[in-house]
């Protein structure tokens, strides 16, 4: 036997002509424009919010008070608002906790639903509804969140209240299901359910995509060894798609944390740490920004910028985790 030596590839040098250099320059400039624009915008955001961070420090993230003295940002601030120390206090602790609480409730429902939904579409659905289901799934991901909010308030609330009442009746002795007032309509639980409906299309379509890429021969091997469909799913499909589905869930989490209008319509914003998910108190950083923005003073705007920055950083971390996993798991084209 003789070993065949593969020759090492020759190093190639590319010399670009002037026209090519111009072309590459233009394209690079175009790609960099977006980078620079984002950089400038983020810079402004940091600059404008730095005052708030300097004044309130770490307390901005943990405090529970939001009080402002001032007027509309474009109508000119009042004299009181211009002074450095006018008694305004800004902090978003309950809103951060609220965001996490609502997003967790949403994921609690969305994760099983989307994994089940993806498995159903890929492995159980009859052939003739497979394509309509996939189309509907993609279309559902494009429904504006505003419409989810409307639907949540007008249609879902009656169901949500019934479920919340049931939970409170049967499990009210557990602290998180206890309430102060029996008025469940605008509780984090109901809002979380609507948010789940909003997140499910995203996570399901990622999960379905991942499951559909499971190597067919591995599944067939399972069947050939006498395995059932459940066996094939448990031993091949689920392990194969684990990281991809996790990435999809993180994308959904990012969406849930940053959701604005649906939460705005569904929740009462209350600046109080609350873990009673059936109580009509809650909040979310994004919807708080939209709510307080209308009549915000100059200083309050700076505080809102700071809240936006916090939200931005949180979602950036979540999304970076998701996209790095997706990049690692998708085969390169």
């Amino acid at each position, binding site marked *: 036997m003789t070993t065949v030596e593969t020759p090492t590839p020759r190093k190639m040098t590319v010399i670009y*002509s002037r026209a*090519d250099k*111009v*072309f*590459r320059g233009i*394209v690079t*400039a*175009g*790609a*960099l424009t*977006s*980078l620079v624009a*984002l950089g*400038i*915008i983020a810079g*402004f*955001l940091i600059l404008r919010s730095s005052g708030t961070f300097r004044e309130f420090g770490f307390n901005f993230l943990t405090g529970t008070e939001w009080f402002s003295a001032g007027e509309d940002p*474009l109508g000119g601030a009042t004299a009181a608002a211009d002074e450095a120390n006018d008694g305004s206090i800004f902090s978003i602790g309950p809103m951060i906790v609220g965001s996490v609480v609502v997003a967790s409730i949403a994921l609690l429902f969305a994760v099983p*639903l989307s994994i*089940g939904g993806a498995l*159903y*579409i890929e*492995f*159980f659905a009859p052939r003739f509804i497979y394509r309509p*289901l996939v*189309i*509907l799934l993609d279309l559902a991901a*494009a*429904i*504006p*969140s*505003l*419409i989810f909010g*409307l*639907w949540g*308030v*007008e*249609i*879902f609330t009656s169901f949500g209240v*019934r479920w919340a009442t049931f939970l409170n009746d049967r499990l009210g002795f557990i602290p998180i299901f206890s309430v102060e007032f029996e008025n469940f309509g605008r509780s984090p639980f109901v809002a979380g359910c609507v948010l789940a*409906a909003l997140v*499910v299309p995203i996570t*399901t379509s990622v999960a379905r995509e991942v499951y559909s890429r499971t190597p067919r021969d591995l599944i067939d091997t399972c069947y050939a060894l006498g395995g059932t*469909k*459940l*066996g094939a*799913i448990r031993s091949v499909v689920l392990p194969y798609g684990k990281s991809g589905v996790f990435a999809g869930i993180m994308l959904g989490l990012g969406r849930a944390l*940053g*959701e*604005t209008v649906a939460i705005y319509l569904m929740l009462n914003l209350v600046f109080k740490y609350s873990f009673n998910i059936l109580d009509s108190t809650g909040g979310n950083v*994004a919807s708080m*920004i939209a709510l307080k*923005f209308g009549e915000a003073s100059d200083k309050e*705007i700076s505080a809102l910028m700071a809240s936006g920055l916090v*939200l*931005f950083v949180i*979602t950036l971390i979540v*999304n970076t985790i*998701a*996209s790095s996993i997706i990049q690692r798991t998708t085969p390169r084209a």
Partner: protein
Amino acid sequence: MSNVAALTGSTNPESTVPTPQRPWAGRRSERLITFARLVVFGVLAIGLTVVTPLADVDGWAVAFLILNFAWVIGITSRLGTKERRNAIARVVVTALGVVAFVPWLSIFATVLWRGYRGLYPGYFVGDMRVTTPDDELNLGGAGHAVVGTLIMVAIATLITLPLGILCGIYLTEVRGRLTFLVRLFVQSMAGVPSVVAGLFIFTTVVRSMEKYSGLAGGLALAVLMLPTVSRTAEEVLKLVPDDLRSAGYALGARQWRTAIMVVLPTVRAGLITAGILGVARVVGETAPLLLTSLNTNGFVWNPVGGTLASLPTYIFAMFNYGTEYSVARAWTGSLVLLSIVSALFFLARRLGQRKNQK
């Protein structure tokens, strides 16, 4: 197919390859029986909702699920645990799948059912200058909101389509030193919460122009649209076979000529799709517009002439007004918005399919 043809030694594969058989698939009679069983269970579940505390549609669903469970456990009692688990898993997964789809079907149905009431031809030409939200539904309209949305989406598209395509070309053709950085930024931009995009533009554009405007709204939408467009453009450009590029180079074309005259025309439909998907992504965005362009009651054609209405903010305002007619107006607006999104979505699909067929 070619493997089978080789095994059977045939030269004409189409005539000898048997159509794939699926012996495990249920026969027609079996499927009919299954269907009949589900109908019977459905009726029984209605009965259960009457006699037990379970009520309404969700109660019916629970009853239906319990009946199915009972049936599956009963029918598999003679089989082994493996088969039983499989049958139970089938019921569970099917139930989860159906439940996952119910909210969206409900949303489509609700928007159609509540939205069509307020629809009349004048809805698309009228505005709300002399009509209060509480007036009868055959007065006023959302023409001004549609125009505002069109203006802002047009601004966003004009900015992001060239930039997004340039980003895509940079990532696939030029592959410069910053490829990693550009891709990272585009991906992290995709995760920017929409309200934060609105804040971005408020701090920069609205503050420096000292007024809310359609231009600011369009820019905020552009921030949200750019990632979608550039990522789709990149995906599409990746699909161009390297052979085409090599052929271009072999014919003596420089890189710029190959890119502009070979690669880009090949994926024209795909690039249009990228634009359409981007538009579909931002046309329903509400939060950034609440911070940048607000709402008006009349037609405004000037993108820098102060506040500008848009469909989402129109719906939002009507819904928050909270009377019977104003909420009906909000639903009608939602119907128009959802129709636009769906139309764009199917247009993009259509273009994508035609591209794949070639």
